[in-house]
């Protein structure tokens, strides 16, 4: 594995007017590492994710990314065109609501193929074969390739969204509550699938979730946020098994034990 991190975040803050989104967040993300950001609603985790993924411009601080050519670039100084290019090649973004990340009125195959076509693949047969392959990897039957995601169940849509993001072999994927809104057995399958793919492809991922079980299953490290600040960070097992901050202890102890 590489000896350099993939992403460096220093003192990132975002204010909405006077209101605090998140403040003074610093961390490094290494290739192949999965980082979970947990916290309750309104704790600033989605704001942080949107800043990292350049959907929002932070009020202060910097985020540097090591591009494929090993050059470190400050994300907020990229041109819009460079940023978009990065987002459709080297990054993925999995939305909580699959309808936000999919084109609901074009077929599943075209949803998967869009990124390939956007980066210049001009061979229909190849695009189609790749789409079939990826549908298989996310456990969608090949005969659904020409169906629109409107006719898919919630779990299938989410899996399709994952395939659509991973098809260009990104190095970093952002996920915003990827299992939110799915029922428990579907969540379990999706987590299993995600864990397999992340391991197999050596993806780095930043996952925002309020579900500690998701963090436990998928992430290597986690950060706990409260009121816009990171109050505790560390290896996932350490944080969950031996939480130090009172708030983290409260979070961990409020999981229902079945």
């Amino acid at each position, binding site marked *: 594995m590489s000896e350099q991190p993939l992403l460096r975040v220093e003192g990132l803050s975002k204010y909405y007017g006077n209101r605090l989104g998140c403040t003074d967040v610093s961390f490094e993300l290494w290739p192949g590492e999965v980082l979970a950001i947990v916290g309750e609603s309104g704790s600033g985790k989605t704001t942080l994710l949107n800043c990292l993924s350049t959907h929002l411009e932070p009020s202060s601080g910097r985020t540097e990314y090591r591009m494929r050519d090993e050059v470190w670039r400050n994300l907020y100084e990229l041109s819009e065109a460079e940023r*978009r290019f990065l987002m459709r090649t080297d990054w993925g973004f999995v939305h909580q609501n699959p309808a936000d990340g999919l*084109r609901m009125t*074009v*077929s599943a195959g075209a949803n998967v*193929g869009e990124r390939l076509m*956007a980066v210049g693949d001009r061979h229909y047969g190849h695009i189609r074969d790749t789409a079939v392959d990826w549908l298989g990897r996310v456990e969608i039957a090949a005969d659904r*390739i020409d169906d629109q995601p409107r006719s898919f169940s919630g779990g299938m849509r989410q899996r399709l969204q994952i395939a659509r993001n991973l098809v260009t072999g990104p190095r970093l994927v952002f996920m915003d509550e990827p299992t939110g809104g799915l029922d428990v057995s579907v969540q379990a399958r999706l987590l299993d699938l995600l864990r397999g793919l992340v391991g197999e492809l050596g993806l780095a991922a930043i996952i925002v979730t309020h579900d500690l079980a998701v963090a436990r299953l998928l992430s290597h490290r986690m950060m706990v946020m409260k009121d816009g600040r990171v109050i505790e960070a560390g290896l996932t097992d350490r944080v969950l098994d031996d939480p130090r901050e009172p708030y983290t202890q409260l979070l961990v102890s409020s999981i229902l034990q079945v």
Partner: protein
Amino acid sequence: MHALEEYGLMHVKLYEDIAGHGRIATTYAYPVKVEGRYVMDPSPTPKFDNPKMHMSPALQLFGAGREMRIYAVPPFTEVVSLDFEDHPFEIQHFTQPCALCAATGVYLDEVISDDHGGHMFVCSDTDNCEERRAEGHRGHLSGEELEAAE
């Protein structure tokens, strides 16, 4: 979209055509790439005429009403229709010349002529068709023959 060169969606449309119909079924408003950079929709021109836009000596103007814009293609500009390597761009082919003026190599409209399935192919460019007839060109269904048959 143009500034960011994000044209992936244009190919998605063509992909959907092949997935649904086995071939690119778009016949007009067929997207073209101008000078290797800008993708444009030359609607309402049929794709039959797309190749004629390439290196055309004429200045070509396209009004895009809903966008409230006018697109201009300068003379002698490279214009290439989008396609896939394994599904190359093709124009429509007609097996017969214009029924009125016998022109070949022009875009023909199919006109239904009666309730029994009768139809004929005539020039889409009616002005050009009339000029040709004035010059004495005659197709197999042009007026004189019909009169002669009556």
